[in-house]
């Protein structure tokens, strides 16, 4: 296959040198079978070793390589160069503080992830000797989709509410909290409801649905967030009927 030339306009930022992010162009020979990530790696290896970006698995499962490509959040190891024109713009994910070049700050997400308690909560822990839980394929199916999140952050960079409301838990974190709420092994719904109705409220979501449009793993976080609203309403309504012990 013969190569062709493409120009990559890449956002660069080094906090020690640059006041603000700037753009730098690279014209390189590309293989038409490449993904966007292959081009970035080529630039780093052969043209400009100072370019910084994250990647590892190159098979769309580790979630490190999310960037804005031509203005859209994209998993660069999955995004074919063939789907882009002669000039490709690559920028760090929108809605995130930028650490360097194409690298964004992820700690904010990890805070949010921890808030939703993404682990199995049970009144009484099961002992190993008791064996595995029984969970039917149908019960598994209920949460399966929401357990597919690779934490790639594309949804956060597409969501308008994330851009405006720093407290908002955001699509992926809510999807993961909701995933545990739907798991037949979990009993932590009430604990998570408090989080879902608190500062980062699920109700902040205005159902832009852009999170689901850009999700590379078909997690459909918008579905999770809005199902979570439904549950929150039901939980709120039943709290009048059935008063809760303890956790209030």
């Amino acid at each position, binding site marked *: 296959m013969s190569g062709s030339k493409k120009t990559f306009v890449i956002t660069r930022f080094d906090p020690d040198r640059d006041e603000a992010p700037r753009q730098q162009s690279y014209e390189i020979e590309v293989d038409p079978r490449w993904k966007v990530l292959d081009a970035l790696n080529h630039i780093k290896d052969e043209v400009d070793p100072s370019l910084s970006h994250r990647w590892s698995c190159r098979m769309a499962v580790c979630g490190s390589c999310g960037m804005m490509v031509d203005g859209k959040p994209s998993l660069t190891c999955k995004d074919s160069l063939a789907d882009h024109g002669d000039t490709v713009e690559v920028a760090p994910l929108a809605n995130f503080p930028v650490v360097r070049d194409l690298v964004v700050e992820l700690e904010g997400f990890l805070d949010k992830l921890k808030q939703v308690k993404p682990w199995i909560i049970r009144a009484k822990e099961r002992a190993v000797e008791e064996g595995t839980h029984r969970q039917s394929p149908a019960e598994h199916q209920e949460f399966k989709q929401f357990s597919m999140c690779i934490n790639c952050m594309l949804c956060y960079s597409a969501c*308008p509410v994330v851009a405006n409301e720093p407290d908002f838990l955001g699509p992926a974190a809510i999807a993961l909290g909701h995933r545990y709420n739907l798991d037949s092994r979990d009993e932590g719904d009430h604990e998570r409801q408090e989080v879902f*109705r*608190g500062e980062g409220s699920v109700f902040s979501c205005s159902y832009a649905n852009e999170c689901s449009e850009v999700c590379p793993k078909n997690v459909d976080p918008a579905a999770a967030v809005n199902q979570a609203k439904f549950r929150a*309403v039901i939980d709120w309504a039943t709290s009048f009927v059935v008063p809760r012990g303890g956790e209030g």
Partner: protein
Amino acid sequence: MKQWLLRLEPIIWLLFGQGILLGTLLLTGWILVVGLAIPLGLVPAEALSYERAHALASSLVGKLVLLALCALPLWKGAHHIRSLAIDFGGAERDTAVAGCLYLIAIVGSLLAIAAVVRL
């Protein structure tokens, strides 16, 4: 105030959601006939002569439908305008904006109740 809003979020969302769902279901025919067909003369105005209109409206079902049709869209409206305000950079003022908008929705809903009650 912000805490209050947070606590009320479920009920606001419920009314908002119904504003979209029931509102859209009911409004389509309503706008078609009352807003367009009759004023444009496509349907004779006698169809909603005072007697007939009043008879339809003052039944219990009529009252409920009218109440839903007037009040719920106010909530969809208020909630979406709030979100629009945030879209255009008003996140800082959200609590105040939301307060005003929901106040409009509340007053409007009360008026709607009054309007159907006095039929």
